[in-house]
């Protein structure tokens, strides 16, 4: 029988799953994690099987990753999202030497040599430089995340956001609105501030190209632009950046199965 593997990436905001057969995609799904991680993991797995028309007849080798990886006790193996994101990106861009993964509650920079992780850094325990920071700032500006990205890209200038603390930065944003600064300029300032935090981590490991980006924030065009301009390099984006961790988990599963 051909080998079927399943990768589950249970993140802080969303749970992602990928089902592969001999490296071929059978199904991919994304659900909000919600408050009941174990239930979400179970639902995600069932829906993946249904979508891949697997029913109850197959027993894929399952690898769980992400902060909620322990929420999937039915998985055969758990592997950190560091290794999974690395493996996932190598599948799409084998030459990658630096991977930036910005998720809901953390960001990481992974250094790869010939497809292997040789070093990595994660954000300190602080929301600045993560998706959560962008969410809070969008809330302060009373726009959606998509609008935040769009208005930032359209803005001709930017205002500097000096607070690195998320809570203080939000009050700074509110103050800037009160003083009548255009939302687009503030949004661009927010993107720049986030990009600076992430770029500092990249620089700590050294800028090595090709550089790729994964995670939900990679879908935010304004953020990608800000990061590219901060780092002075072009970032390569995989087709579904949010799914890279799940892809990597499934591909690693194929090695262990």
């Amino acid at each position, binding site marked *: 029988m051909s080998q079927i593997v399943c990768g589950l990436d249970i993140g802080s905001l969303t749970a992602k799953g990928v089902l592969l057969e001999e490296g071929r995609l059978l199904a991919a799904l994304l659900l909000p994690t919600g408050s009941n991680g174990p239930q979400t993991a179970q639902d995600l797995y069932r829906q993946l099987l249904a979508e891949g028309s697997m029913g109850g007849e197959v027993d894929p080798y399952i690898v769980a990753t992400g902060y909620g990886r322990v929420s999937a006790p039915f998985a055969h193996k758990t592997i950190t999202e560091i290794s999974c994101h690395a493996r996932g990106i190598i599948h799409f861009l084998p030459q990658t030497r630096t991977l930036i993964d910005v998720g809901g509650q953390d960001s990481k920079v992974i250094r790869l040599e010939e497809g292997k992780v040789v070093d990595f850094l994660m954000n*300190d325990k*602080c929301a600045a430089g993560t998706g959560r920071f962008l969410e809070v700032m969008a809330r302060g500006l009373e726009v959606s995340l998509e609008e935040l990205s769009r208005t930032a890209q359209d803005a001709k200038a930017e205002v500097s956001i*000096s*607070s*690195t603390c998320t809570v*203080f930065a939000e*009050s*700074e944003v509110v*103050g*800037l609105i009160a003083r009548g600064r255009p939302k687009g300029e503030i949004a661009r300032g927010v993107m720049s501030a986030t990009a*600076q935090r992430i*770029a*500092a981590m990249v*620089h*700590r490991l050294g800028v090595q190209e090709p550089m790729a980006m994964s995670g939900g924030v990679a879908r935010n065009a304004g953020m990608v632009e800000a990061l590219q301009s901060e780092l002075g390099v072009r970032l390569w984006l995989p087709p579904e950046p949010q799914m890279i961790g799940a892809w990597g988990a499934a591909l690693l599963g194929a090695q262990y199965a």
Partner: protein
Amino acid sequence: MSQPFVALKGRAFWTCSYLPCELSSAFGYQPRRFWAQAGGTPRADRVFPPNLCSGVRASLEEAMRQATAEDLFLLADCCDADRRLADALEASFPGQTFLLFLPRAEESWPELASELRRLAGFLAKKSRRPLEEEALRAAIIEEEALRQSRRQFHARQSLGGVSPITYYEALRSWCGRAPEGSFPLGDPPAEESSDQGERAPILLLGNSLDERSFWEMLEELSFTVVADDLCYGEKLSQVQVQAGVEPFEALARAYLARPPCPRTQRLEERWDDVLRRGIDRGAIGAIFIPTKFCDYYAYELPILVPRLRAAGLPTLVLEMDYGQVSPEQLRTRLEAFRESL
């Protein structure tokens, strides 16, 4: 300012005001205190973790942005963060950094004198010229004259006759960081002495305040700084180096005898001195700004703030990242404090 001794070579950057500028001047270097620049510290953030003193971070940033092979970095082991700054500078600029062992007690002057001789050896090696005692004595006289004019300035300041921005410019100038065309030392503009009546006289405490916008806000909100406890402020002006004594001994004795900083063991004397200056000069409040992640000033807070308040000086504590002022929060706090005085 004339420099009669030798031609100027490079710049000698310093962080701790216990390091006598007389020595670097005597070897022809321009002493300059590191000064926080606008635009954050992206380069330093690659070397230091986020929970290290923002002053040290700003210093490394400035060095990485603009230092050359001709420059020197003269540091004291005054705190753990400065020691790590020495490591980081050594890694980026090999052989250009000197780290001085700085004792705390006044009676340890022989150790400091010996360390200053070691520093002179370093400067001699770097400048490729031996120490000339005449040049050192001349530098001491010159620096002493500068401090004399600083003391005159403080006398005017203590009467409320100096605006915050003028004081800021003076501090920059004393630290070798005066922008082009700034006012001559000890001679602030004449109009300064008038229209100070509505101002709230305050005592300003903290390590250092390089950020101009903070002083502008003090100015806007009609504060006037009548006394300060800044590293490079009035405490440094009080150094008095004796002429006629062996120069290294004179320097070591004078610098260790200056009004004590929070790193010394003369804490009771320090607290009394700060309080007395504030009250004697008619301050009606105090603003205490410890640099974030500076342990020395953080340990001052629990003792000094209650004392200031008990002595009738309402005290505002502002935790501020060096060179990273968030204007909205700062304004709200300062404005509310001004209204309460």
